[in-house]
């Protein structure tokens, strides 16, 4: 009898403890809340849109409902990473589909155009990839989920100066990309402020430019590092040409590039051995509990875009949950911009009232064809 009582008490305790750990089950309310997605699902940048969408879908598996039981419905708009189409998509989602909020996986250029009209539609937009600092300027409805190029450029310059202890750096930019122009300029400015010397500031646009002459021009000034906030394909070509000239300077690139290399240009990854990159994530960095759940839910190799999709969706749902009426766009916008210490995959994310994100930056490197985590900057 005594043993029976002991066993019963033990069982009760175990069940009690297990129950404490259970999250309350959400009862579907029968209502739907719409979230718009503007992304390049076609065209040269389709990887960004499709990979990001995979992340959103994965996070959605874990959180298909709001806490009030409203089902979440995604409304997809393909903008092909084109500014005109982005604005059209914004208009449609805001006016016709009446979405509660928009997640965009487009680059800085299209999002800057959306920023011009964002206040007209008064629909909260969370930009998941665009890092240009002007995106949050002059509007109240676009918030940035990644760190911006000011932070990225500053950290890159500091890392090169203080950790690599290099004095001379060249910068190659794509003048057609607002992101590239700004990031390159910020890096150069900060590097000089820190006592370094920018040997060259070279423009390289499209496939038509003479890459060889660009490499020769840069090499002539003998920089220790070349900062390359340009497209992955262009980086690979430059490195190939430099290699043929038996010139192997340290190179550093901007956010998301390693992901593109490892997904689209896997074969060339070894060619880029030693390449440094600032990024939002690192493969070997410790994951948060939420990160672990997402990782086990996601089948396949997650890229930076996938991870941003996962985190961005979760942060938006968090903001929606904090509003009594999930259709109240003003409230959602306010909640997005008052997110504090939201636990992402590998660290905490805060969105300030000006729409800027505060989140850690990782410096990664390509080592033996794989991404290797070097440092994390808060």
């Amino acid at each position, binding site marked *: 009898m005594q043993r029976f009582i002991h066993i019963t008490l033990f069982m009760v305790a175990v069940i009690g403890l297990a129950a404490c750990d259970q999250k309350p089950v959400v009862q579907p309310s029968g209502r739907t809340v719409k979230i718009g997605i503007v992304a390049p699902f076609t065209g040269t940048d389709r990887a960004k849109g499709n990979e990001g969408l995979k992340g959103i879908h994965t996070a959605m598996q874990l959180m298909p409902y709001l806490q009030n039981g409203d089902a979440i419905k995604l409304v997809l708009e393909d903008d092909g990473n084109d500014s005109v189409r982005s604005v059209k998509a914004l208009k449609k989602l805001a006016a016709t589909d009446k979405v509660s909020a928009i997640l965009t996986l487009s680059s800085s250029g299209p999002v800057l155009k959306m920023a011009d009209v964002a206040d007209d539609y008064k629909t909260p937009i969370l930009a998941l990839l665009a890092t240009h600092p002007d995106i949050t300027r002059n509007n109240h409805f676009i918030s940035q989920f990644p760190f911006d190029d000011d932070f990225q450029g500053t*950290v890159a310059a500091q890392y090169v100066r203080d950790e690599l202890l290099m004095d001379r750096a060249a910068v190659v930019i794509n003048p057609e990309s607002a992101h590239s122009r700004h990031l390159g300029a910020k890096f150069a400015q900060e590097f000089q402020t820190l006592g370094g010397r920018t040997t060259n500031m070279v423009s390289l646009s499209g496939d038509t430019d003479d890459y060889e002459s660009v490499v020769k021009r840069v090499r002539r000034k003998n920089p220790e590092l070349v900062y390359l906030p340009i497209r992955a394909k262009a980086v690979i070509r430059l490195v190939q040409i430099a290699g043929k000239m038996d010139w192997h300077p340290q190179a550093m690139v901007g956010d998301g590039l390693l992901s593109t290399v490892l997904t689209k240009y896997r074969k060339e990854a070894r060619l880029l051995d030693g390449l440094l990159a600032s990024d939002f994530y690192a493969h070997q960095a410790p994951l948060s509990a939420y990160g672990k759940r997402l990782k086990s839910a996601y089948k396949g190799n997650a890229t930076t875009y996938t991870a941003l999709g996962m985190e961005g969706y979760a942060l938006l749902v968090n903001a929606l949950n904090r509003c009594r009426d999930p259709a109240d766009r003003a409230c959602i916008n306010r909640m997005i911009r008052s997110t504090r210490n939201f636990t992402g995959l590998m660290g905490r994310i805060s969105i300030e009232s000006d729409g800027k994100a505060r989140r850690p930056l990782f410096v990664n490197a390509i080592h033996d064809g794989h991404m290797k985590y070097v440092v994390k900057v808060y």
Partner: protein
Amino acid sequence: MTNYVSSALFVYTPDTKALIQRLQANSFGTAVTPVAIDDLLQNPQERLAGADHVVVAGTLDVIKQVLQFAREHAFSVGILPGETQKDLVRSYDLPRNLDAAVELALRRDAQVMDLILCNEQILLFKGAVGRVPLIDTPGAVNRPAMLVSAFKKFFGLKLLGFDLITAGGRRIETAACGCMILQHHVGSLASRLISHDSSLTDGMVSLVVAAPRSVVAYLRFLTRILFTLSAKHKRLPAAIGYVRSARIEITSETELDVFIDGRRATHTPLVCRTLPGAVRINIGPDLKEKSKGVRHSAERIDVDHLPKGKELLKARKQQKVPFFSYASEERFRDLFTALREDARINGAYLVLMVLSTLLATVGLYLNSASVVIGAMLLAPLMAPIVSLAMGLLRSDGMLARNSILKIMAGMAIALGAAALVTLLFADKPVTPEMEARLNPTLLDLGVAITAGVAGAYTKSFKEILQSLAGVAIAVALVPPLAVAGIGIGRGDLHFFSQAFLLFSTNLVGIILASAFTFRVLGYSPVIRGKRGIATVALFLALIAVPLSLSYDRIVQKRIIEKSWKKERFLVNGKYLIIQRARLSRRGGKELIFMDILARDALTRDDLMKFKQKIQTNFNRKLVLRVRTTYIP
């Protein structure tokens, strides 16, 4: 040159009738006359008249019947083994191939061999009495299969009383789970154990007796067999006895079935005797070669490992084989004398305790590991702790009480001496050697348990140098005790409590581990002092809670300290590189000591922002201690 018999009878059964043609068509010039076994049994005199050589193929019973006739009619025997008669093939070195078997069976060079009769029944290779799980395990199987087979047979094993009487009149009274009678049997562990000492013509019956006195002994034997499977054993393992005599009479406490050559044939009492040179059999060339030069040997009795005297009485009383063995009386007596002596407080103990603590305290202040080790060499704490373990295990009130008093006296001296030294020092630095004793974890419990096992083990064997284990135990006790004393001297309760927790952990761990070791080594058939041991175990469980929390904290600390190596901060545009970070806990606060590299001078505002960033991103309140090195 090989000679073959000119004529032979072939005794067959319905199953082996098909071999007649094969035999008659032999190319050795032997005239073969077939005779059915039934026909032979009906008219043996007529059928065997004039027969010099008989070839037989059939069951073991048929072969034994032919051997019986061979003994009476003095003819030689060739055997054609069946496919399933593997024991026969192995024991008589017979070819598996039929042509080769026919060739061997028709040879004219039969080997003279002994015949063993057990209760007047012929034993060809082995007989088993009772349960013989160890030695009856087939030796030819692979190690994992042998292990499984040995384990399966072990369940329900019990030692029974056996009386063995040899031809020389020697009587052996013992307890065993079973025994095996062997006639040059190849293929079991038993035959492997005595293979160096058995032959076909020694005129002896070999008896292997299995008496595992405990599960532990059984497992030890099994391990030895497994790891030396290919080697022949000149020395018998602990659980085995061996008797070799021309005649052995076996009587068991209760009537037991006797299996001869794998079949239930008779029961105890059993008389096995040998008929020297009774038959001539054509055996394989290797076995024949081995049998050359073997003489009749003397009776041998090797039963030192079998239970006798009081052990025998104990063994017979038990329902089944116990898990642990008993220590021998001699060992038991020696150990108890030593432990009783160890439990008494004497002057040498007190003096050594004072000296070792003084030395440890000074060593701790000097942060000198070598001085602390010197203190451990002096410390006499092992003796009363091990005595206490035995006292609790056997519920020996006097032994336990004396031991506790001695330990308490030692503790008081150590705490007092360390506190006094601390009070005398004007400067009271906290050295890393002291800090190392302020965060006890489960790993420390591991040290204590290992030291406890070592202490009890060395105490149990006079031949082992006991000071070695004494040092191991002192490692776990003297420095924590000295640090606790320093805590008293400093008036720092946290300091004292942490070090004393470590000391208590080690003390309790050593006592329990020592008690367990004594139990395993057979110094106590049961845990008599259940209440005492339960109290110690309860203490251990209680101590394990803070230790486990502390262990988790240390793991977290290591993770954090490691992760900091890759952490950087951008504070007010200033880039801070963390070179090293060390997390520490003092007075309930978490302190982080950081060495950082920075290019620009850090202001108070920078440091505040830096602290905020740490607290935000790591979700913990940390007291920051920063040492900055500026990058030129």
